[in-house]
């Protein structure tokens, strides 16, 4: 029973990692932009929800209604005003600029909120669980997070394959110059992609902050988990990213069950094994 329990917890944790990774997967897939500040934006979203809670008295779930649009707007402005200028043939430029952003965000959060560890209080349902029989219990909260991950990724798939914006995203991923010739404004399209990515970051940040403690320095490891989920799943495939998150979550859960100190290590080892055995990831779609 213990083994099945570990497995289920790992799969559900994978949902959160998939949400971490979705934005990264989107921005890389559409505009080949690797956002090194991605993890810090997840933490920023968590602090935004904290601030909304303190200033407006909003419970975390309601704060999402503020945090998601705010992050999406920030994403649009950031891409339009800054990151579009870094795109081109040189991969190093966006890396350097987003690394700089990462430092800035961390330090602003330190200034504003101190280095203290914080947590959002979701309420009683946060710790509720349902019995599946045979002594197996799953937490309501991890279940909700996983369901949201599936919903978000399913929704994005619909957007990508059923709407004009999605078509333009896919075409931009193929050939940015030719999409411009067809009448698309590349700067706007990129900014829309970043807005969607950051909206998901807003959701992921709040869900993460209800689950665990966070502090301004926590961005780096969120970025790492996101990267690992994207790479394990294969570039350019959002369902693959969900699978990558699940692999990472299960590996961590197994590692943690053997020895609590091995939880994070086990995730990294699983990532390295995938890199060795299948460097293109489990379900790659973008050929590069």
């Amino acid at each position, binding site marked *: 029973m213990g083994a099945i329990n570990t497995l289920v917890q790992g799969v559900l944790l994978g949902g959160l990692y998939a949400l971490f990774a979705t934005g990264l997967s989107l921005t890389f897939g559409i505009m080949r932009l690797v956002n090194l500040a991605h993890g810090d934006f997840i933490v920023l979203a968590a602090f935004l929800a904290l601030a909304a809670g303190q200033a407006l008295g909003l419970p975390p779930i309601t704060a999402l209604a503020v945090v998601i649009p705010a992050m999406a707007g920030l994403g649009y402005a950031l891409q339009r005003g800054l990151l579009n200028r870094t795109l081109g043939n040189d991969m190093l430029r966006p890396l350097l600029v987003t690394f700089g952003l990462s430092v800035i965000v961390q330090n602003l959060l330190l200034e504003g909120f101190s280095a203290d560890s914080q947590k959002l209080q979701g309420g009683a349902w946060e710790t509720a669980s349902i019995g599946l029989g045979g002594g197996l219990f799953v937490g309501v909260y991890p279940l909700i997070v996983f369901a949201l991950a599936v919903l978000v990724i399913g929704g994005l798939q619909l957007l990508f394959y059923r709407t*004009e914006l999605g*078509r*333009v995203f*896919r*075409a931009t*991923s*193929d*050939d940015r*110059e*030719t*999409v*411009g*010739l*067809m*009448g*698309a*404004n*590349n700067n706007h399209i990129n900014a829309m992609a970043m807005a969607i990515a950051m909206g998901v970051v807003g959701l992921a940040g709040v869900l993460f902050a209800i689950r665990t403690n966070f502090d301004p320095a926590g961005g780096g490891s969120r970025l790492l988990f996101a990267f690992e989920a994207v790479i394990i799943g294969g570039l350019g495939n959002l369902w693959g990213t969900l699978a990558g998150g699940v692999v990472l979550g299960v590996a961590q859960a197994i590692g943690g069950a053997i020895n609590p100190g091995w939880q994070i290590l086990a995730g990294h080892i699983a990532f390295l094994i995938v890199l060795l055995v299948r460097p293109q990831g489990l379900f790659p779609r973008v050929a590069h």
Partner: protein
Amino acid sequence: MTPLIETRGLTAGYGQFQALFGVDLSLEEGQTVAIIGSNGAGKTTFLRALTGLLRPDREQVLYRGKAIGGLAPEKIVRLGVAMVPEGRRLFPSLSVEENLLIGGLSRRKGPWSVERVYEMFPILREKRKVPGTSLSGGQQQMVAIGRALMSNPELLLCDELSLGLAPVVIKDIYAALPRITGEGCSVIVVEQDITQALAAAQTVYCFREGQVSLTGSPAELSREAISAAYFGM
């Protein structure tokens, strides 16, 4: 009468490398112009400068008398200038139909629709669900032409329609041109293979080393004059 498009002393290039040295060209509405010349003569650069992919000075390109040089590509396509790029440049992740739909992004009104493109190239209707790049070269060229027509252009720029295609396929592709000009669309065709281009055009410009080396109507120009302008001998 104001020409549909006119270039005045057009210069363009890539970074330090200049590829066009003062090109004057003009096209009346309803006309088909052929630009011929060897590899590296500046033909593709010329089209890239017209579409805004390169940024010449504003006054060097006039569209209906209005200076448009260096406008962003998405603005130029909204004015009614569409391009069939060299090598077709279909979107591999998109189906044939999705490739056509992307061509309609500029939302210009006019005679062309997905349905009309299928009428002109019936094979594309059968293949509409498959990825554009899984088609044969000639069929891909049909998609690229259809995609450009979806913006209902007043001026269609065709870069090397014949590139990499069998002669019989090239004939089929060029057979579609009268349908397009019949809708009132003017055309600039750029070709290395001059036979089809000369047959389709009322005016021909020969480019050599970034300049116009010869111009006139195909009927009036002798093969010798063209070959001298083409090769510089």
